[in-house]
């Protein structure tokens, strides 16, 4: 039974990691290409979740909701880029942080204005309900396996997009020298809007997928945003590969820490104390890991050469 529990927790960690990757990929792409720190990325995640919940409630189909979440988050991303973000590329990071923080407040209160203050309902689609057997006799939820599958598919898709397509070539060129590709006649403004909308769509997808597991409510994006920042700092800012590795590290370390640390402490102290101390330490664990990694590799694991 213990091995089964261990495998189950490992899968849980992987699933959390994959979900963080969807967030972190967009964040790191936007930072890598445009040099922009986007605090409002969590709001796009929230937009995705609300769009999915609203459309699923209206039509009864989770899949239509999922499509709507991609469309709504990408549209919100494109609009925000054109109206606000475009003016920030030449400014320093402090101005960017200030403006995108304002966007968080606008998105939050705007969402509350439209949907109200009470959380929305969103359930997993019937097709993905149920569970599959694991080696060792335990069972694992099908929906969480599907999330892992989506994450892997997105990672592979992004790899092909960036390494094999013309758009990917422009994105890579934009990362290394944006003045130069502008001078070569590439429409850099449209490219930026497309990249921003792509990142937003990934965040919206993550929001919709997770919305079925959690509560769809205003402010749901900010805790995930903090974790996503930890991920891209560990992985190396601007690197998609780094985002993937960092996300899996954070997901597995966080889940295993919550599971194993309290048990470890019961070996040396009374049970009720051990659970409190273990839980407290588990919540710090990913930040400790981040500090250690940064001490060894200050640029992150897969630093982008500039």
């Amino acid at each position, binding site marked *: 039974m213990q091995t089964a529990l261990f495998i189950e927790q490992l899968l849980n960690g992987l699933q959390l990691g994959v979900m963080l990757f969807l967030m972190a990929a967009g964040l790191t792409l936007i930072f890598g290409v445009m040099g922009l720190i986007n605090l409002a990325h969590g709001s796009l995640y929230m937009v995705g979740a609300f769009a999915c919940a609203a459309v699923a409630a209206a039509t009864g189909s989770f899949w239509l909701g999922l499509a709507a979440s991609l469309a709504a988050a990408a549209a919100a991303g494109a609009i925000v880029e054109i109206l606000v973000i475009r003016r920030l590329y030449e400014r320093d990071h402090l101005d960017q942080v200030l403006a995108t923080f304002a966007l968080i407040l606008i998105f939050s209160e705007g969402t*509350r204005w439209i949907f109200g203050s*009470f959380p929305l309902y969103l359930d997993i689609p019937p097709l993905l309900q149920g569970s599959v057997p694991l080696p060792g006799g335990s069972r694992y939820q099908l929906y969480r396996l599907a999330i892992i599958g989506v994450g892997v598919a997105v990672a592979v898709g992004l790899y092909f997009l960036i390494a094999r397509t013309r758009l990917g070539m422009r994105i890579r060129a934009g990362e290394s020298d944006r003045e130069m590709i502008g001078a070569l006649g590439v429409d850099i403004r449209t490219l930026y809007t497309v990249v921003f909308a792509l990142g937003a769509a990934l965040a919206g997808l993550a929001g919709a997928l997770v919305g079925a*597991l959690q*509560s769809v409510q205003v402010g749901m994006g900010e805790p995930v945003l903090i974790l996503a920042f930890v991920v891209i700092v560990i992985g190396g800012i601007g690197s998609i590969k780094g985002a993937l590795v960092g996300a899996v590290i954070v997901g597995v370390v966080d889940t295993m820490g919550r599971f194993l640390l*309290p048990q470890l402490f019961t070996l040396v102290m009374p049970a009720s104390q051990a659970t409190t101390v273990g839980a407290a330490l588990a919540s710090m664990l990913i930040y400790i890991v981040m500090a250690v990694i940064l001490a060894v590799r200050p640029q992150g694991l897969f630093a982008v050469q500039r």
Partner: protein
Amino acid sequence: MRKLIAAGLVGLSMGVSGMAFADPLKIGVITTLSGGGAGLGIDTRDGFMLAIKQANNPEVEVVTEDDGQKPELAVQIADKMIQSDQVDILTGIVWSNLAMAVVPSAVAQDKFYVSTNAGPSALAGAGCHQNYFNAAYQNDNFHEAMGQYANQDYKKTFILAPNYPAGTDSLNGFKRYYKGELAGEVYTQVGQTDYAAEIAQIRSSGADSVFFFLPGGMGIAFMKQYAQSGVDLPVMGPGFSFSQDVLPAIGDAAVGAKNSATWSKDLDNEANKKFVEAFQAEYNRLPSIYAVQAFDAANLILSAAAKASVTDKDAFRAALKEADFASVRGKFKFNTNNHPIQDVYVREVIKEGDVLSNKIIATAFTDHGDAYAEQCAMQ
């Protein structure tokens, strides 16, 4: 028809409490109207304002401000309300950590504070104050009731709460009355949204039941994931986990869950029937426990104001202490530490047509006070 009844009710209550007070009364409501916890604050405000509207007394003025669930903001608002708005009474705070930041300094400035929800143990025991009245409960109460009720059916319960003061209070309250064995005791992170790791532990622990205290969005996430995981052990929790504000978001997964509270929609008394009807007519939704407690708090304040002027602190304090109002919770009186002595019920989540709600299935405690009253030096 509903409007007619509501109008009739308003008219009726005008006749009862529309009398003039000796002096005008100014009340400051500090509550959470933005951010993730806004649902609780909005119910608090709406419940409170319903009572004020029913009283329809031009002598009563209410100012409301949003604390954004931030202690530092709540302290600033309280200072502003006391100094520039010159309120006589403060009320409305939902969260215990905010109450701890605001209440001690407000009562030390000789203002009254009437709590509509938060009831931290520190303010019920050694830190009690003659100007602090709690119209809701002491934090441990709901959890104690669930521990008491669990003794009937369960021998091995898995318990779980967030790792912060109200979370530890919760599990301590549960353990104070629960006699069975614990299959596991887990503290989760505050604001945690994924409970897969904890649910896997529950599955392998050999428990016969689960008790959890996870307020707001945390509880929604836990219940959905728990139902999806296929673990089918019975679930119980304090009423907050299955309150009217979160039930629609949890969905059918909540049906059958046992939870403890001092109030339920079906509680059989005249004041409650009128209240539920009026609240639905006014806001077009069912009230939650937060709305109930705020409604009672407002009526408590109005009952005291009808008897004494708020400028005469001693007389007003004595009038508050009498608790001479028709509580929608039925029986209600104050203990020596100005916290309620009341009945605590066990409810079960049911589905009425399309609407999820609660019904009372048992009484866990009759005339229940709290464990801290004797540490309170005030008499």
